[in-house]
C-alpha cells in the first residue's frame, strides 16, 4: 500500500480547489447578470413579469439546491444532449444565485425612500433617468454588504456539485479519502480550505456593512 503524507493530501486538495473557485466565480457573475435582469423585470411595473419573477424566486428559494442540480443534470439530458457535469452545475448554480441576488437587490431598491422617486419625478426625469441617477446609486450602497455576504453561500453551494460528479474540492476530498483511508485529516483539511475561501468574504461583508452604514444612520 502506498503511503500518503499530509502534503500529498493537501496538494491534491488545493489543485481541486481551483475548480471550486472557478465555478464560484462563474456562478456569481452569471447569477449577478441574470439576477439584475430579474430585478428589473420585478420592479418594472408590468404585472405579468412581476408575478413571473415572484414565482421564480419562490421556486428556487423553496426547493433544495441539490434537487435543482439533479433536475438540470437529468432534465437537459432529456433533450438528447450528453450533459457534462460542469454544464449542469454551472446552469443550476447561476439560476439559483440569480434568484437570491434578485431578492436581495429588490430589498435594496425598496429601501430607497419613496420621496426620492417623487423628487426625481418632479424634476421631470423619466423612469430610466430616475433609476440611473437617483435610485440605483443609493441602492447600490445598501446592496454591497449583503451581496458580498451571499457570495459565501455561493462558494458553499458549489460543494453540492460534487454529488452530480463535478470534480471540485468536495469531490476531491471523497476521492482522496478513498485512496488514503484518512477521512478525519482529509475532511478536516477540506473544511479548512473552504474556511480560507469563505472567511475573508464574511469578514469583508461585515466590515463593509459597518463602513457603508455610517451614512445610513443619518436618516
Amino acid at each position, binding site marked *: 500500500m502506498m503511503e500518503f503524507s499530509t502534503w500529498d493530501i493537501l496538494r491534491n486538495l488545493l489543485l481541486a480547489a481551483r475548480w471550486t473557485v472557478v465555478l464560484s466565480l462563474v456562478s456569481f457573475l452569471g447569477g449577478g447578470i441574470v439576477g439584475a435582469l430579474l430585478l428589473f423585470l420585478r420592479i418594472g411595473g408590468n404585472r405579468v413579469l412581476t408575478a413571473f419573477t415572484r414565482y421564480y424566486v419562490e*421556486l428556487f428559494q*423553496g*426547493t*433544495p*439546491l*441539490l*434537487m*435543482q442540480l*439533479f*433536475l438540470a443534470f*437529468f*432534465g437537459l*439530458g*432529456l*433533450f*438528447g444532449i450528453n450533459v457534462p457535469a460542469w454544464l449542469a452545475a454551472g446552469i443550476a448554480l447561476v439560476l439559483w444565485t440569480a434568484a437570491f441576488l434578485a431578492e436581495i437587490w429588490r430589498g435594496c431598491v425598496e429601501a430607497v425612500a419613496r420621496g426620492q422617486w417623487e423628487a426625481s419625478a418632479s424634476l421631470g426625469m423619466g423612469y430610466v433617468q430616475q433609476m440611473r441617477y437617483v435610485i440605483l446609486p443609493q441602492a447600490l450602497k445598501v446592496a454591497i454588504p449583503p451581496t458580498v455576504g451571499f457570495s*459565501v453561500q455561493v462558494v*458553499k*453551494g458549489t*460543494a*453540492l456539485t*460534487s*454529488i452530480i460528479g463535478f470534480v471540485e474540492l*468536495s469531490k476531491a*476530498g*471523497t476521492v482522496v*479519502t478513498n485512496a488514503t483511508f*484518512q*477521512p*478525519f485529516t*482529509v*475532511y*478536516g483539511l*477540506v*473544511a479548512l480550505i*473552504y*474556511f480560507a475561501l*469563505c*472567511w475573508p468574504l*464574511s469578514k469583508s461583508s461585515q466590515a463593509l456593512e459597518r463602513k457603508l452604514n455610517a451614512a445610513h444612520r443619518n436618516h
Partner: protein
Amino acid sequence: MNYAFSFSWLTEYYPVLLKGILITIELIAVGGLFGVALGTACAWARALGPAWLKPLVSAYVELIRNTPFLIQLFFIFFGLPSLGLRLSELEAANLAMVVNLGAYSCEIVRAGIQATPRGQFEAGASLAMSPIQTFRYVVLVPALQRIWPALSSQVVIVMLGSAVVSQIAAEDLTFAANFIQSRSFRAFEAYFVTTAIYLALAILLRRALAGIGAMIFARRPAR
C-alpha cells in the same frame, strides 16, 4: 425532444416516498428544536456569558458558517469514528443539522438579545433577579419574538439543506428519489416529484413556524 414522461412508477413506489418524507420531517423536527436551543445557549454565551467562553463560541460559529454543510456531514460521519465516535447515518445527519443550525441561529438570536433596551436588564436587576433570571424571564422571549421571522427562514433553509444527508445513506426524501430513479430509470420524473414535495414541505414548514410563533408570542405587543 422525443421523451415520453411517465409517472406510473408512483403507484409502486409511493410508500418509499412517504417514508422519505417522514424521515425528512423527523430530521428537521429534531434539528430545528435542538439547533435553536443550542443557538440560544450560544447567543447567551456570546452576548452575556463569561469572557473565557466568548472566543470559543465565536470560533464555533465562524467555522460552521464558513464551511459547506456537506463537508460538516462528511466530517461527522466519516471523520469522527477515528476519534472513537461512531454514529449511525441518522444520528450523524441529526447531529450535523443541530450543529449547523446552532451556529446560524446563534447569530440570529444574538441580534435579538442585543436589540433589547438596556433598561430591561436594569429593571430585572432592580427586582433582585440574577443575570440568568433576567435573561430567562425578561430578555429571552421578546428577543425571540423580534427575530422569529429570520429564525423561521433559517429553519426552512436547513430543512432544504437536509437533502444532502442522502449522501451518507440516511434514508430521507432525496434518498428515496435516488432509490426510485435507480429502479425505475425515471430520473427526471422522480426528482421532479421530489422537488415539488420539498416545495410543499417548505411552504408548510413556514406556515407551521408562523403558527408556533403566534402561539408562543400570543398577547405580546410586538416591539
